[in-house]
């Protein structure tokens, strides 16, 4: 595979020894034509909204240009920086992101290591397949099932707690103190198996001689996990950690929106839901764009910094 790739690249470059562009285009115009429509698609649906962010600095009038009508400078930024709702959403976003990272980063690693230790190949395959399933399920379904399980009147969890421990039914979905845990653990449920794919691939790539050598030295299987498996996949873990830190502010906005109730809004209102409410529900388009732009920029900074760190430490990054 690798050889072929190298060959392909060589031939490709050999074919264009500083040809003038005109003859290059004449020869490959079909390829340029082929990507014309998709490129226009990207310009329209990705770049125009990017430019549309100028709305954060301009006043919007209904029915007029989506880029706004007149410049107002940092007016909307000043407004949200003094808005307590913004700071509440900002804090909620940070807390939820950190909780999510701390809990859901290590779990797939542990799962991958355990899965790799399963001896029976068919059982292993079964667990693997089943563990991918939740990733394919809509957030709507996840939250609907959660609502049924936790329902105070008919849910299994409350029935169990009442019958076994005599606890009065709790309306878990509506209480602020449970919101973050429910968010984090539904994420675990949905993505543990899926994220483990990358670690499993890394574990599969480990040289078996290392295990054989450890065995000769009289290592138990637990010792092999700690002294062979973990150190061998450490680079992968590092890259994944850095990338996860980079994108940690991108929370599952749709899930939060589905779980949002007036009663838990004190902890469940994150920046994305604030943008949604301000912009689409209350139609303060410019104000919402300003908030969105601000959090988008923080996201870009986080990704860029984490990627640079990843490059420096491991020589590997996403771009």
């Amino acid at each position, binding site marked *: 595979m690798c050889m*072929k*790739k190298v*060959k*392909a690249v060589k031939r*490709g470059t050999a074919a264009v020894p500083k040809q003038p562009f005109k003859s290059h285009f004449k020869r*490959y115009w079909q*390829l*340029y034509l*082929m*990507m014309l*429509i*998709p*490129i226009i*698609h*990207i310009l329209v*649906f*990705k*770049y125009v*909204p*990017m*430019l*549309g*962010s100028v*709305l954060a600095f301009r006043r*919007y009038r209904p029915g007029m*240009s*989506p880029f706004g009508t007149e410049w107002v400078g940092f007016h909307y930024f000043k407004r949200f920086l003094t808005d307590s709702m913004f700071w509440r959403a900002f804090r909620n976003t940070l807390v939820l992101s950190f909780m999510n990272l701390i809990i859901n980063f290590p779990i797939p690693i542990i799962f991958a290591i*355990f899965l790799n230790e*399963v001896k029976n190949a068919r*059982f*292993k395959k079964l*667990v693997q397949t*089943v563990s*991918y*399933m939740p990733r*394919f*399920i809509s*957030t*709507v*379904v996840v*939250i*609907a*099932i959660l609502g*049924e*399980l936790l329902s105070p009147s*008919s849910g*299994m969890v409350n029935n169990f707690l009442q019958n076994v421990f005599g606890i009065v039914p709790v309306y878990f979905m509506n209480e602020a103190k449970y919101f973050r845990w429910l968010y984090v653990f539904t994420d675990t*449920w949905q993505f543990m*198996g899926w994220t483990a*794919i*990358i670690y499993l*691939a890394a574990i599969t790539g480990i040289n078996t001689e290392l295990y054989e050598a450890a065995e000769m030295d*009289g290592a*138990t*299987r637990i010792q092999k996990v700690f002294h062979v498996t973990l150190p061998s996949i450490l680079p992968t873990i590092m890259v994944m950690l850095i990338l996860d830190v980079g994108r940690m502010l991108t929370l599952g906005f749709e899930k939060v929106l*589905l779980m949002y109730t007036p009663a838990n809004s004190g902890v469940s209102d994150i920046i994305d839901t604030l943008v949604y409410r301000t*912009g689409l529900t209350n139609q303060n*388009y410019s104000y919402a*764009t300003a908030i969105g732009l601000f959090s988008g920029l923080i996201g*870009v900074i986080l990704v860029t910094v984490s990627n640079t760190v990843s490059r420096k430490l491991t020589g590997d990054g996403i771009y």
Partner: protein
Amino acid sequence: MGKHKKIAKSNLIFDGLVNLVMILVLLVCLLPFIYMIAMSLSDPAAIMNNEVTFWPKRLNLSSYRQIFSYPNFFRAYGNTFFYTICGTAFSLLMMIMLGYPLSKDFLRGNNFFMKMVILTMFFSGGLIPNYLLISYLRLTGTRFALLIPFAINQFNLIILINFFKTIPVELEEAALIDGMSYWKLLWKIVVPLSKPAIATIGLYSAVFFWNDWFNSLIYLNSNQYPVMLYLRNIVNGTMMVGEAAGSADKSTIAISVKAAVIIVSTLPIICIYPFLQKYFVKGMTVGSVKG
């Protein structure tokens, strides 16, 4: 000898622990579903009395019969199939037409276009500018609002490009010498050879369209709603389950009917993904490492 015994014992305990954890994972993944299936197949009165756990009580199919008799559920289900099939087809078409030229390193300007794609992975316009653009284009309230804007996903595109790059050039060169156009070459030779990658990104696209509810909520009219939005509206009470539900036993009917909607709207995807597993596992590792 004693040392060997110790190692063997430690390994045995470890083995037991590993298998125990795996069984636990299996149960945690499956039980919520089994619970929903049991609910959907049970007699509403049994649900009311909290008799149902993981096995249906007084088995009956009335909730399934009921949901398929609701015209709004039927329409929503049909809408979902429509968006999934058309959306995925259009999405694949666009990504193949973009991915193939971008996989050719010799093509001039390729670097620029590739950077143009990658930049959008780091910064996007955000919710409001996207919303205003789609209303400005007068797509709001039409099914195109869902089908067109989300066609190109950058991560999927990169998986596809990486796969195209592994196809041996000899095959293409032979066809080009025979006078085949690039367009024909793409569809007759490259696409059939790329089935694993196309199956992977096709699955991702299909899952995206099948599961969408938020974009449908903000862009579509209620008669265009897909089944996920229908379910969400039942769950949060913005919509009654169906006209047939009498006021007295509305809540009990709602539970078994809700469960039936959950099962019916989830089953198709769950039935498909295991067959594509070997492809997407490969796609995931290739795409994420090289992406």
